[in-house]
């Protein structure tokens, strides 16, 4: 009886040992993967930040204005270019314009 129990215990111990060993290996691989992924995520995040900063720099209003003057010569939106609601009393606009003309 004792012999059988011992054999079983030995067998169980062996299985535990081998499975623990293989688990260790798998965990190490996964840890390495996570570490690599973390590094890659951080690098990508850094790149995204740099790109966002560059995008904002390239789209800075004074730079766009300079480029417009140089290549496009688009005119600014003036107050008169903005559409006014149809139901607005034109008498009021006329009064305002009259005041301005004075």
């Amino acid at each position, binding site marked *: 009886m004792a012999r059988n129990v011992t054999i079983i215990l030995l067998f169980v*111990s062996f299985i535990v*040992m081998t499975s623990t060993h293989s688990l260790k290996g798998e965990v190490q691989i996964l840890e390495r993967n996570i570490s690599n992924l973390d590094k890659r995520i*951080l690098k990508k995040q850094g790149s995204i930040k740099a790109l966002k900063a560059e995008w904002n720099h390239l789209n*800075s209003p004074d730079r766009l204005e300079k480029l417009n003057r140089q290549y496009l010569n688009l005119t600014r939106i003036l107050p008169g270019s903005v559409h006014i609601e149809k139901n607005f*009393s034109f008498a009021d606009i006329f009064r305002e314009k009259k005041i301005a003309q004075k």
Partner: protein
Amino acid sequence: MSSDNRPTPFYRKREDRIERDSNSAKSLAINKKRIVLINILVVFAYILISARLLDLAISQENYKNFNNQLLTKYELPSPKTTRPDILDRNQHVLATNLRVTSLQINTKKIIDIEDSIEKLNGALPRLSKKDLYKKFNSKKNYVDLARHLKPSEEHRVNQLGIPGLDFHYEDKRYYPYNNLASHILGYVDIDNKGQSGIERHIDKNLPKNKSIQLTIDIRAQHIMTREIKKAISTYQARGGAGIILNAKNGEILSLVSLPDFNPNTKKRRDIIEKEKFNRAISIYEMGSILKIFTAALALESGVGSMERIYDVSQPLRLGRKIIRDLHPKKDSLTLEEIVVYSSNVGASLIASDIEEEYKGLLKEFFIRMGFLKRSPVELPEVVKPQGPKLWGKVNTLTTSYGYGISLNPVQVTTGIATMVNGGYLNQPTLFPIKEKKGKIRKIISEKTSKRIQRIMREVVANENGTGKRADVPGYFVGGKTGTSEKVGINGQYDPNLLMSSFTGIFPYFDPEYIIMVMIDEPKKITKGSIVTGGAIAAPVVKEVIKGLISLLDIQQKIKHYDNLKASNHKI
């Protein structure tokens, strides 16, 4: 009896028993040995397993630590130096961190100093051989060689393969818009510590783990900067400041001070003092803009009325002090006209009436408006205002038209917002207001506020109004001019050193935005030209409003005006 039947002698039985016992003891001994052996094996196996588990546990920990070290050293910035991104109200990046490389040397690992210096100088010519020699022979183990390497420089150094050279990665603060919001954002030192502006405010008051959004609209900031720059250039002024404030909640859309600086400048000491000086939060005697507050108090207290007439034909003499008007009027003016034509004598007469009726009311009113304490706007450099030490009659009368009390432009803009938004004092802020916190102080009534709106509209719409150059036809601009003399070197007010300002509101019937422009010491560019707030600052406000129309939802306001008229709302 036969011999077979003989009984076993007693000694024989004993021998048998002894033999039997002897066999049993032997087998027992053998079994014992086996059991012990098996036990030893089992115990050994368990020890082995336990040891292995322990080993795994420790080695896993080490493994993790190792990885973390790697990440910390080469990828993760130190938490101490991490700063949050700063965004404008439309999520444009105003300040961010970029990963940069620094070069360090481990002096103990260097094999051939001469050769290393020669190679390194070739790859990084900006490091002189003399400096390198000094650093390579340092007694310290680790010495910094160069900070903020360019990617190309890092590549060149890496190619050298010199043992003992280490790269370190750290964050560098970067401002994509350069100068554009420099006086709001401030700057950081080489260790990423905030030195001024919002950067300094963050270090003291805010968590560093997430992005920070401001109320600033970078497009509005650009328009304001562009127009003030033009005025400074035209009038050869010393500087200028501008603010766009949401009248309904105190959010600041733009805060400009010129000259400004580039916070990306490598050497911070290159930023000179006059560039660091923020005019938008420094204190000045603001001049006639304060007449709005005097008029509002008179109307609110019942001392004055819109139709009440004041004789402004003569200068006002108070002991040695004589109060005069820039453009004297020969007749009497109503309260409204006093503001429209910006009469110092008239404002003094109104203040005199208030003081006679309610002594100390003007001072109390300024205290309630927060004019005698530091503005709560989140910039550490805000200068505390200065009022008269003694509120005697002369001082009280001069404060009524903006002399003897020094305020910063943010305070004045906030004050004007209070006067025209129905009377609610919203504290100015650079951070979006998600929910109204606490009680918002009511300063004046709706009725008085409407009257002030009308007066401010008259300043611009009236053909003789001082602010007529700010009008944008169809957009109902109101406002008030301010021209004050600065104190010269001799300690006296100098008529050649002017501070010209204009504070505009639009649309006047339901003001959403308050726009203030101040030009510091404009010069007379032609003989006889005038450099008052109405002549210089008002046109700047006009141009800013024209620029903002395409950005802000102005059409909705016009529609709202229509609705107000439809409901017979008196304006």
